[in-house]
Structures are given as structure tokens and as C-alpha cells.
């Protein structure tokens, strides 16, 4: 039961972007299309899961005082791997994501989970926590990307959905659209939470 909780809490109840308000920069910056958002979600999840596993494995040997630099080195190792793998196998996506690939290293989600979860829990729960948080992050960022791409460009994952007369609102794929989309998503979440509380 608790293992299932470790996995599920990251997806909705403690969703990193919408509830914990961390990892915002990549969530907004690369979500102009669903494909970019999905790519970023996968990259960050990979780093998150691997670093959670490694940190949970070595946590007994890590002295308390210098744990942060050690976490950062572990995380940056996986970020470098992601960086080079993406550059080699998907240069188009790499070009789109740009500086945000190396910036995964300072993504608060990853260091936050290392500190708050993987350092205190076993390998299995940390792996599940990594998967849950990773899926939660990838889900939100893909949804934001899909909404912006749909309204701003009339496509989803590059496929046209409206008939040709549809006039896309370009503003949605420009920076202001990112802010407003996440604002509206959060407002909906608040609205439903308030409703649930009233009951």
C-alpha cells in the first residue's frame, strides 16, 4: 500500500509543477509544443529516476554535512549522459530544448526529491517515487504543450486537428501564452480543491 502511495503521490496529490510549484522554468520554457514538452519530461524523468536510485543506494555512506555537493555530482553525471545521448540520437529535439538540457541539473524537482525522499528511503520506494514524480512532471508539461500547440498552432504532436479555416492564436506559443496556460490550470485545480473542501 505504501509503495503504491510512493508512486501515486507524485502524479496528482504532490504534483511537482502545479502543487509544489517547483520545476517551473522548464515547464514553461519548452512547452510550446507537445513534442518538446514530452521530450523534456522524459529527459528530466530519466535523470530523476537514476539519481534517486543511486542516492538511495549510497545514502548510508554519505556524511550528512557534504550530502548536497555529492547529490549534485551524482545528478550532473546523469545530466551529462542525457545531454550527450540526446545530442547524438535526436539533434532536432536537442536544438529545440537548447540550454534547458544542461539546466536539468538545477531543476529543483530532482535535488528536492533527492533531499526529501531518496536520502531517507530505501531503493525500491525511491525508484517508485522517481517514477511517480517523473510521470507527474512529464504529464503536466505535455498537457501544457498540447494546449498551447492546439490553440497557438492548431496542431497536436504536429498533426492538424482543425479544418483549414481555423485561425491559430499565435500568442499561445509565445511566452505570454505559457504563463497564462499554467495560471488557468492552477486556477482550475484551486477551484476543484475549494469545492472538495466545502463538501
Amino acid at each position, binding site marked *: 500500500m505504501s509503495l503504491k502511495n510512493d508512486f501515486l503521490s507524485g502524479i496528482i496529490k504532490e504534483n511537482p509543477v502545479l502543487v509544489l510549484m517547483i520545476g517551473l522554468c522548464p515547464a*514553461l520554457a519548452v512547452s510550446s509544443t507537445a513534442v518538446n514538452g514530452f521530450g523534456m519530461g522524459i529527459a528530466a524523468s530519466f535523470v530523476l529516476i537514476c539519481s534517486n536510485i543511486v542516492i538511495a543506494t549510497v545514502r548510508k555512506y554519505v556524511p550528512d554535512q557534504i550530502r548536497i555537493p555529492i547529490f549534485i555530482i551524482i545528478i550532473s553525471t546523469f545530466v551529462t549522459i542525457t545531454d550527450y545521448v540526446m545530442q547524438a540520437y535526436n539533434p532536432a529535439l536537442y536544438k529545440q530544448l537548447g*540550454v534547458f538540457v544542461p539546466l536539468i541539473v538545477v531543476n529543483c524537482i530532482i535535488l528536492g526529491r533527492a533531499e526529501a525522499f531518496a536520502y531517507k528511503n530505501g531503493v525500491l520506494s525511491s525508484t517508485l517515487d522517481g517514477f511517480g514524480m517523473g510521470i507527474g512532471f512529464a504529464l503536466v508539461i505535455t498537457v501544457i504543450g498540447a494546449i498551447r500547440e492546439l490553440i497557438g498552432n492548431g496542431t497536436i504532436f504536429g498533426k492538424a486537428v482543425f479544418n483549414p479555416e481555423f485561425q491559430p492564436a499565435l500568442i499561445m506559443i509565445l*511566452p505570454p501564452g505559457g504563463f497564462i496556460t*499554467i495560471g488557468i490550470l492552477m486556477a482550475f485545480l484551486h477551484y476543484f480543491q475549494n469545492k472538495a473542501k466545502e463538501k
Partner: protein
Amino acid sequence: MDSSSLFGILIASLLINNILLIRFIALCSFFGVSNQMETSIGMGMAVIFVMMMASAVSWLIYYFLLVPFDLVYLRTASFILTIAALVQLEEMYLKKYVPTLYRAMGIYLPLITTNCAVLAVAFLNIDYNYNFLQSMVYTFGVSAGYTLAIILFAGIRERVALAPVPKALQGYPIAFFTASLMSLAFLGFKGLFGL
């Protein structure tokens, strides 16, 4: 105008590609500390200070250490550790020798280690192939742009806090709407000087 001239770099990084509103870097601190004018100013000043130092050091490390020894793949790890160490050093130095400055921005210094803007600028300086002087001007533009945006944003948020906002929009959602409108305004700088 030539976009690689120093003035062009400054304007482009300060207004046209404002790091917070157009490039979406360092948003956590943008929403986190912008509740009050005073803290925003402190944070802005601390960012200018740390970013200038961090860019200078990481530029030197990249071109005099990593490139000659063919260690470019260590870029991410070495930059983040340099910045973390630098922030620690600066904090200790200020505490001992410039206590007034330390009191003004001391509490913001540790926060800056995880401020992605500092690391982002270090990477961008390398990605754009800037020479040392260009990268310093670029860094100044970026950090001044950060300060400008966060101070303006704090000013608006102080007013919004007193306004009657619908219940579901209170707190962060309305802040995002505000940021969206500001970002729209900054988009207006696009095309300035034909950059």
C-alpha cells in the same frame, strides 16, 4: 545594428530577451520572493553581484582549463560546483569584511546557488562563443534585466494583494496572469533597433 556589438548585446539581453519574461529561466525565485518590494530589490542586487562573478570564473575555467585539457564533457559538473563554491566564499567574505552588504543581501545568497539563471548564463556565454568582454556585458544585461523584471513584478503584486481577486485565482494563478501581461509588454521590445 550589429547584434554582436557590445551595446547590442546589452539591449538584447536586458529587454528583448529578458531572462525571466521571455526566456523563462529562474522562475522559481521570480514567483517565490516577489511578494514584497524590499526583498525583490535585495534579491536583484544579489543576483547581479553573484552572476557577474560566476560568469567570469566559469568563462575562465572553460577556456583555460576544460578546453586545453579536452574535458569539455565535465562542463555541467564543473560549472555547478564552481558556482556553489563561489557563493559560499562570497558569503563568508561579505560576512567578515563588508557586514553592511551582508546584512542587505546575506539571506539571498544561499538561494542563488539553485537559481538557474546563474548557471544558464554561464552556459549561454559559451554557447554564443562570446569573448570575455562580450560575456561580461551580456551577463550584466541579463542580471539587470532580472532585477528590472522582478522589481516591476513586485510592485504590481503589492497592488494585486489589495485587490478583490476571485477565490480560485487568489495567490499564484493571478500572479501568473500578471506575469503573462508583463511578458506581453516585453514582447513589444522585439524589433527594437532591428536586432
